[in-house]
């Protein structure tokens, strides 16, 4: 009970705050890794707008490469999709359960399986923005940063001409 009476020492409070800062720092570093060391990939997309009660308004982005023909996979399996660069956007070559040794690839998780085709999720299916945002241009593709493990993060939303999508926020 002595601890409750005196409370933590200055050293403990500093230590606690430092622990939380380092804890968040690791989280930020992990999430920022594709931005720091990743390569750029542009994928074709079709977005819709839902709402997350915890984190606010966001856009669900569906990719053309999300459905892949692949056998012997189950829901929850990790799959790598090999990508090749087209004229404007990157397209999938094939999907495999083992990490490719070379080339550009993106890591996904199997969401559902139908016959010999699997629906994949890459972790970049959402783009958050604040309330009262007006999307001034039609979103046609998404620029991603992909690191060596295949982990991807959204970098920019692009129009059909490749320019960045303009978002206007009402006051």
């Amino acid at each position, binding site marked *: *009970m002595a*601890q*409750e009476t005196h*409370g*933590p020492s*200055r050293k*403990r*409070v500093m*230590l*606690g*705050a430092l*622990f*939380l*800062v380092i*804890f*968040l720092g690791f*989280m*930020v570093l992990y*999430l*920022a890794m594709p931005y720091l060391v990743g390569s750029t990939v542009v994928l074709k997309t079709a977005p819709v707008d839902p709402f*997350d009660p*915890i*984190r*606010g308004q*966001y856009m*669900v982005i569906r990719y053309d490469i999300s459905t892949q023909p692949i056998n012997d996979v189950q*829901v*929850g399996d990790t799959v790598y999709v090999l990508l090749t660069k087209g004229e404007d956007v990157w397209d999938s070559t094939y999907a495999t359960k083992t990490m490719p040794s070379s080339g550009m690839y993106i890591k996904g998780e199997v969401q559902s399986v139908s016959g010999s085709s699997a629906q994949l*999720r890459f*972790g*970049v*299916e*959402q*783009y*958050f*923005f*604040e309330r009262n*945002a007006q999307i001034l241009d039609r979103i046609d593709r998404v620029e991603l940063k992909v690191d060596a493990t295949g982990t991807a*993060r*959204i970098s920019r939303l692009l129009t059909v001409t490749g320019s960045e999508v303009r*978002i206007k*926020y009402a*006051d």
Partner: protein
Amino acid sequence: MADANDKFTSIFATIGAILIGLGVVWLLATNWHSIPALLKVLILVAGFCTSFYAGFQLEQKEFRRIAQSLYFLGSIIFCISVFLIAQIFNTDASVQGAAVLSFIAAIGTIIASYIFISRSSLVVGMFMGTQGFFLQFLATLDSYRGDQYVASYAILAFALAMVIYGVSLYHRAVEHIFEKTYLFWSTFYVLLFGYILSYQWVLIYLWRGSANPITGFITFMLILGALALAFGIYSCMQSARISASEITSIFVIIIAFAAFLFMSNVATADQGTCRQMYCGEITSDSVCNSVDRCMWNNNYCSETYSYCSFNYNNQTGCTAPTAKGVLCEWQTSTGWDNKSYSSCVSLQRNNQYVDSCTAKKSRSSCSESAACTWSPGYSYSSSYRKQLNTPTYLLWIVFNIAYIALILAMIALSTIKKHAKSINLCISFFVLFIITRYIGFIMDFGGYTSLAFVFIIGGVLLIGGAILIRKWHKKLMDQVESA
């Protein structure tokens, strides 16, 4: 009187801390889009660091209650930071993603609560962990689309209760202030476990669904729970802070839990229906052809009525009779687009088959026929009313009585331990349990007259119950306060 003043200050300080937090969040939120990502992270870090430091300063000046409110606020800002940083990086917005973020926030806050020695931070951490538990549950249901996983979560809740109670005992042994916080959360999980299993359909699927409730992870958690309990009991015995009756109660609950699992496995063995397999489920040609409505065709067991369209895409041979007596005819019809379409259709669909499997009332007799399969679940009467077999029904009754006994025992234990929050929690679960069973009766009793009686009895129970529970609660609180 001093204590009452302290409580009064604490309530206002907590409300004040929440209001300040909301105000700051609101102010930042309106300009959030125009703040660079790095600055956003720094604002969040500054938010919880400032709150913790202010708490420390106030604690030094003997404003302990206000200091705890600021630790509480700092912990909330830290948890919000986890979610907002995830938002900055556009991470997974699914329920699974939210569950992972809740667990991250919980781990950070619980560890930090030990460094700060802050009970309010621990409460936030445990709350976030529980939120993660529920979100993970929803994510599992969403991913596997199997409500049988509910049973797994009930057992996981029990395992968690054991782990947390063991941790609570250890804290008691070392006289740490977190003991009662852990006691509260272990009470919560054990009551949650009982509440989930008080549903009939959960009992049916506990062992009989496609998902086995005892997975590797749950086994690990049960072992961890047993070890945590053993360590907690041992620690308390070393410092003579546990009575023989408490140890006996712990063992009685665990033995009752194991006995219940064993009994449910036996009782629900024949709870379900035997049905004839669908043609698509049959993989053997002899079994397929032995079923009236099925026919083995091109290494696949299909419905006889699909035979004609499947085998003939032109008029030649369309009228040939098949082995099952199905006659095919070439027919032309007009589609919604006014175009003519021709196809080979079956004239005799052979739908009037007799399902001999439904007469088999036990799992073993069902498995004797290769064309029959056992479906666990409710069986249905001739008037399509849900039915439980006698062993399952008796088990359900026994478990519900045992659950009420468990709540009452926990109330008694909490009264002895002078833990008002646990008493409130037990009474909340008791009320929830009564309301749930009442709604269950409304759903089960068809017809105007019986439903009218259910409503009248419910009304009487509600009015009488509200008064009695209020009196009961007041009496318990008086006992705690006088002790």
